[in-house]
């Protein structure tokens, strides 16, 4: 629970931030805005992944699978009818004859992803540790195969293209705010404390009356919901989705972002997603050939990935729990007195 003062600060910060976004949106180039949007989408994905993997300790590698579900559902639903007839002529008629607005398609995409999470989670969440990781990775691959094979709905390997680029800075950052708010509410409630308890010691948690299955499922489904929404936003940013868009590399990327920032913290998710989106883009600048004293060094493609990997290892060496660990951002640094606030606040 936030104190009055904290609510005020948060509100002011939000207004300043949104104003800043508005200014940037009008001044920055499309390329830079694209990066800002990608940062936002990654924040949505990583913060929701942190709810499952970090707060609840259910180490899932299936996040890209939920992204895929959300992206495809939303793509099929939001595609204009004229295009749908052209691109997806084999759709079942009820699906081929509806066109929903973008917001609704995002929500439905998220809900379907959450439904898949429920289906797969119910049997699989009784596993733990690496067994669970492999099972969720399996889910991702099954989804990929299904998308590839059910070509009358998904166009198979060809993917669905020509999506309208609905995704803009307001959609993305609006969803970022909703995601962070929702995860923050959950974490600071009995549900979130139950998840934390399960992460710390599932047996003790169960012996204190916490229903393991329902808490894990909740974390998994909420994570999947936002992954689905994030995937849908991504699809409508890139304007084309295909099975290869959501492979194990994407899951691994998200896990890397989450661990680098700090798994057990919303702040960590935000920082990890931001850094790991910007840094590779900046490193691109190293991949141009240079000419020094008449000697030309050809561009070394792959260099940026190598540097990134090295940096990643260094970060983990010095901060194995990520840059911020379990720490959450708060306004206490603005306070002069040293005593910590009365209640257990995480934000």
């Amino acid at each position, binding site marked *: *629970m936030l104190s009055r003062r904290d609510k005020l600060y948060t509100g002011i910060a939000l207004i300043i931030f949104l104003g800043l976004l508005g200014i940037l949106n009008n001044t920055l180039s499309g390329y830079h805005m694209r990066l800002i949007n990608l940062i936002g989408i990654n924040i949505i994905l990583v913060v929701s992944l942190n709810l499952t993997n970090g707060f609840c300790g259910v180490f899932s590698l299936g996040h890209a699978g939920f992204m895929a579900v959300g992206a495809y559902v939303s793509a099929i639903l939001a595609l204009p009818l004229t295009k749908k007839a052209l691109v997806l002529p084999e759709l079942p008629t009820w699906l081929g004859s509806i066109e929903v607005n973008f917001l609704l398609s995002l929500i439905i995409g998220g809900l379907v992803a959450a439904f898949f999470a429920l289906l797969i989670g119910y049997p699989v969440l009784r596993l733990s540790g690496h067994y669970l990781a492999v099972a969720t990775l399996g889910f991702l691959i099954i989804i990929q195969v299904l998308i590839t094979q059910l070509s009358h709905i998904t166009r198979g390997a060809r993917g669905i293209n020509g999506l309208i680029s609905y995704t803009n800075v307001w959609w993305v950052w609006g969803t970022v705010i909703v995601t962070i708010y929702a995860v923050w509410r959950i974490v600071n409630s009995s549900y979130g404390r139950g998840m*934390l308890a399960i992460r710390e*010691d599932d047996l003790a948690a*169960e012996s204190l009356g*916490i229903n393991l299955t329902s808490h894990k499922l909740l974390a998994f489904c909420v994570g999947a919901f936002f992954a689905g929404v994030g995937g849908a936003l991504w699809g409508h940013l890139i304007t084309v989705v295909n099975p290869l868009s959501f492979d194990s590399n994407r899951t691994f990327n998200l896990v890397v972002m989450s661990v680098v920032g700090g798994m057990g913290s919303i702040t960590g998710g935000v920082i990890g997603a931001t850094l790991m989106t910007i840094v590779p883009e900046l490193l691109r600048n190293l991949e141009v050939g240079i000419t020094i004293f008449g000697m030309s060094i050809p561009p070394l493609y792959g260099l940026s990935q190598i540097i990134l990997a090295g940096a990643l290892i260094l970060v983990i060496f010095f901060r194995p729990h990520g840059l911020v660990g379990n720490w959450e951002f708060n306004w206490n640094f603005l306070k002069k007195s040293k005593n910590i606030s009365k209640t257990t606040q995480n934000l």
Partner: protein
Amino acid sequence: MDTVKKNKIVLSVEGITKKFKGLVAVDNYNLQLPEGEIIGLIGPNGAGKTTVFNMLTGIFPPTEGKIMLAGSDITGFRPDHIVQRGIARTFQNIRLFSNLSVLENVVIAAQIRKKYGFISTLCSSASFTKEENELITKAEEYLEALGIAEYKEQKAKNLAYGIQRKLEIARALATNPLVLLLDEPAAGMNPQESIDLMHTIRKLKDEFNLTVILIEHDMKVVMNLCERLQVLSYGKILAEGTPEEIRNNKLVIDAYLGRSTASA
């Protein structure tokens, strides 16, 4: 004995048995526990005491037998359901949520009775805020009761051993149990701390109207605290009776007590 007879039986255990791959860990364990009693469960290491607790709390379902709590059958229930029905416990090797604060540890236990739903969590509704505040107040009360309120902001893993033990008891109490199972609460404590603990448990029993089962190796604690004792050996009940009776039981002295009373 007369006072005991008057009270109604809160926990009744009939012949529970636990086999692990053919090995019989607990064989035909019986217990009739009247309300408000403190019963001690003693016996050498590996006698099956903790297994009895694990069966009572649902961690291992018993292979055979029946467990009745306040008149209803809870045999084979999941641990979280059993706590909700009213059996709470502590663990032999402390199992706190070590990265969470002391207060959070207790709030997690207290929230067993929370009523608000998922939607009011997301909306941060009035009922949510009210209940959350109540939970925190309640948790603070339990911390006060065990005299560890001053540590509430600290992470559980940073506490001294004795305080961790107390926190575990506070946490179990916060589930508002009918029956409290304490698994070696005095282990690792010095004599003065043990005596303090004894007083605390007696006080809690009266304050919260508890019924207690206690596993303990410290004979001073057991003999002073318990109204009745059960001695377990090789998974079987070797003897049962008042501390006085047990102290003089030949079988018990041979199997177990002889050594420890001699050394005590």
